[in-house]
């Protein structure tokens, strides 16, 4: 028995670590594969089009987390936008902050393949030329992608500065306002809760990340 086992032991190769491969001359740099993650366009940038707008009320207000000075809101708009992929694709580094007038939008989700994004815009007011105030309207007011940043870190002053940049670009012809001629205006939604609001948003644009 022991002789047999000794023979077995000899027949088996003990574990070993291979010697390192020799170094080789550097060749022509290898071809690089392009990433499907589109580069972020220069900002300010505008959506291609406003696809849909739906005003809402919500019985249980919640805090707007997409600006540092956000407060609770009970009214606003659900919006669906079409934009180029680099503005729509979620990414880990800072994304262009989606703004509507003087308000930031809550990005819910996007469908990069279709270039669509759905968002919640809490109600805000715009000051008119005669000094009066009116309610903001995503289908009429300036919608723009501002400098990449975490929305939770921006405040009114930051938004004002970004808006000024966007308006200057608009005036200078380097920014074109999003098309809104074909916008679908849905009737006001009176939602009981945030969950209900999001359920409705999913009807406007299903969340493609849900399997």
């Amino acid at each position, binding site marked *: 028995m022991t002789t047999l086992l000794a023979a077995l*032991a000899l027949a088996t190769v*003990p574990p070993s670590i291979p010697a390192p491969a020799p170094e080789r001359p550097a060749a022509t740099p*290898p071809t690089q594969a392009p990433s499907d993650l589109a580069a972020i366009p220069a900002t300010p940038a505008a959506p291609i089009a406003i696809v849909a707008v739906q005003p809402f009320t919500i019985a249980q207000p919640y805090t707007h987390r997409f600006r540092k000075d956000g407060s609770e809101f009970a009214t606003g708009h659900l919006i669906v936008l079409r934009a180029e992929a680099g503005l729509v694709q979620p990414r880990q580094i800072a994304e262009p902050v989606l703004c509507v007038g003087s308000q930031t939008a809550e990005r*819910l989700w996007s469908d990069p393949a279709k270039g669509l994004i759905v968002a919640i815009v809490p109600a805000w007011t715009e000051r008119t030329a005669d000094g009066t105030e009116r309610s903001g309207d995503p289908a009429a007011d300036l919608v723009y992608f501002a400098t990449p940043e975490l929305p939770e870190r921006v405040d009114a002053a930051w938004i004002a500065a970004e808006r000024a940049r966007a308006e200057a670009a608009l005036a200078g012809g380097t920014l074109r306002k999003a098309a809104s001629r074909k916008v679908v205006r849905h009737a006001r939604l009176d939602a009981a809760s945030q969950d209900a609001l999001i359920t409705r948003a999913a009807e406007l644009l299903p969340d493609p990340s849900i399997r």
Partner: protein
Amino acid sequence: MRHPGGPGPLTGYLWMTMRLTHVRAAGAVAAALLSTTLANAQCPGDLDASGAVDGADLAVLLGAWGCSGSCPGDLSNDGFVDGTDLGLMLAAWGACPPSSPAAEVPLAAVSLAAWPWASWVDTFNSNGSVGIAIDPAQFPDAAGRAALLWVIEDRSPAEWAANAALSDARPAGPQSITCPSGSLQGNVISLNVSGLVAGNGDAPARGYDLVVDLDQDGTLSPGDLIDGRDGGAGFWWTKDIAALGPYTTAQIASYDVNDADIIDSMELERVYYPINAPGLRPIVAISHGNGHNYAWYDYLGNHLASWGFVVMSHQNDTVPGIASATVTTVEHTESFIDQHATMGGGVLAGKVDVDRIAWIGHSRGGESVTYGYDRLFDGTFTSPSYGLADIRCVIAIAPTDFLGTASANPHAVPYMLLYGAADGDVCGCPDSDIADSFNLYERAAGLRHSTYVHGADHNDFNCCGINDFAGPTGTAIGSTAAQSVAKASILAMIRRSMFDDRAMEEFLWRQNESLRAIGQSSTITVVREFKPSPSTGSPIDDFQANTATTVSTSGGAVNATGVTNLIEALANDANTTFTWVTTDPWNGSVRNRTTDSSRAGVFDWTAAGSITWSVPASLADFSKPRALSFRAAQGTRHPNTTAALGDLDLTVTLTDTNGLERSIRIGTLGGGIEEPYQRSGFGTGAVGWQAEFETVRILLGDLKSGGGTFDLSSVATVTFRVGGADGSAQGRLLIDDLILEN
């Protein structure tokens, strides 16, 4: 033995105690005296350990006659030196019987292609084999002798003390061997592993002790060799840690925690758990990244659940930012602890260990778990359900670094970074600190490990994210391969952190060429860093103090000869490209912000040269620490790096105070310092990406191979020799953390 988790090695059959003892010596002098007791434990009566019971011993006994208390000569241990003890001594009169116990020595090993011919590691994959390296020079009594090689289920020191009978775990019983004579080269014996069982319940590895039974009497007896008696195991026989574990798993697909502290749209969790696993099960919480989904980590949830963990993956509020995501991380953890007993109809009731929690986060979620720990550390978040000590480890997969030094800070929690070299999102780019995951790793002040995977992109670590691969054509490894690496390394890290599982630790520091999960393809390049807790190591030079290049952290002189451009400073790429320019010596080291503090050294060479560290006397004893380790990375796109591509090799030489040397080529241990991933962008010309620090851990026991008079207990210098006959002909090397590890 090399098992830091177990008790220290036995002191052998002699021990010496020096103590101040109050004695009453019969008729004589002292009320108090300094006594030295030197005794042979195997030969009672041999009070002076001379190997015989003789007149000298009798003199000692008589000198203590009448003594009470703790006295030399009290052979009966009854507190008195009297006639009983004299009788015992006379009965033992003469030469002591052979009393050398079996020697605790490392036996399990992998063979090496060059000196030291073997490395005495502990962990072996069960699809492979185990080497038995009996160094003839260290054990001349065994050289050339026939013996029986036994494999015994791991016993504790107490179990060995109580039972010296050998019982082989293999159906065929003990293996006949002939111990090598001459050199160890080519003489590593292959253990017959037929019938060995891998894994032990939740543990992927099963421990076995090894005995070389030289007298072939079937007992552990004097003169035999044993590996594994004094704590830990002789070797660990390991299942495939990239494959599912022993438990069948089930899932609670979607559960709404309905927690007032979590925004309504972020309240869902998915839970994976082992069915019929006994006892309480630790928690693993997963925080996804931006645009990701809590249901995208089934591969990880099922894997960890099959190894006995309860895994909860939750919606993570990443879009507003890291602070918002951190709220969902910490609050979901609390909600899960509070509600787990009622989830899924109560299937988890009484089965969750709420005191053992691991956090895993991906991308922005990787930063949110890190910031979550920081908030617990700072006290800006507290929970009635768990606290800082319950978070046993934090694992970040390609985390962002929005918050920077103060907040994206793991402090001293065991921390792991998993990162793909082809990440097209959190890219490790030089133009933005936000995309530099290694920043967080460098801040980790406790045990830490990184797994850097060539050819893996950001979304390879979930099921369904966009293809963001950015790297050389043909090098993409795909999600299946990337996830096999993730499953293995994450399991190893969690088990090391939660259970001090030393078998798994080797998967965190051994070169990938030397050890990887059975299910991981050998074609995947994985670069590993590992640094133990600072409390278990002594830096010779970690470049954090004594900032001149001529003085090490430990205060010794540093002498560089023949190498060029040696500097030490904050290891921070200071411009926005990866193109090599002399004004940016830390090119590629995207591992620090300017507010961070991780310093390192860097130098280059085109001819033979060396850097020598003088070892202070306080650190000179290398015979007790387990390893000498350092980390190094090739300089990104430096002409010396790109002149010849490949793993970079060098020689590490120890010189003792007698001027004798021991040298080891690091390539012998498995590949050397990894060739940089050949990714382009952020510059022109040569390619190469961020600095890939890799840990090299030289087991100091290996340096005893071949015997000789080299004095490991009195090391004067450590030298890195480069160029010429000592390694790669040219190169540029970032170096750090030259540490003696206990």
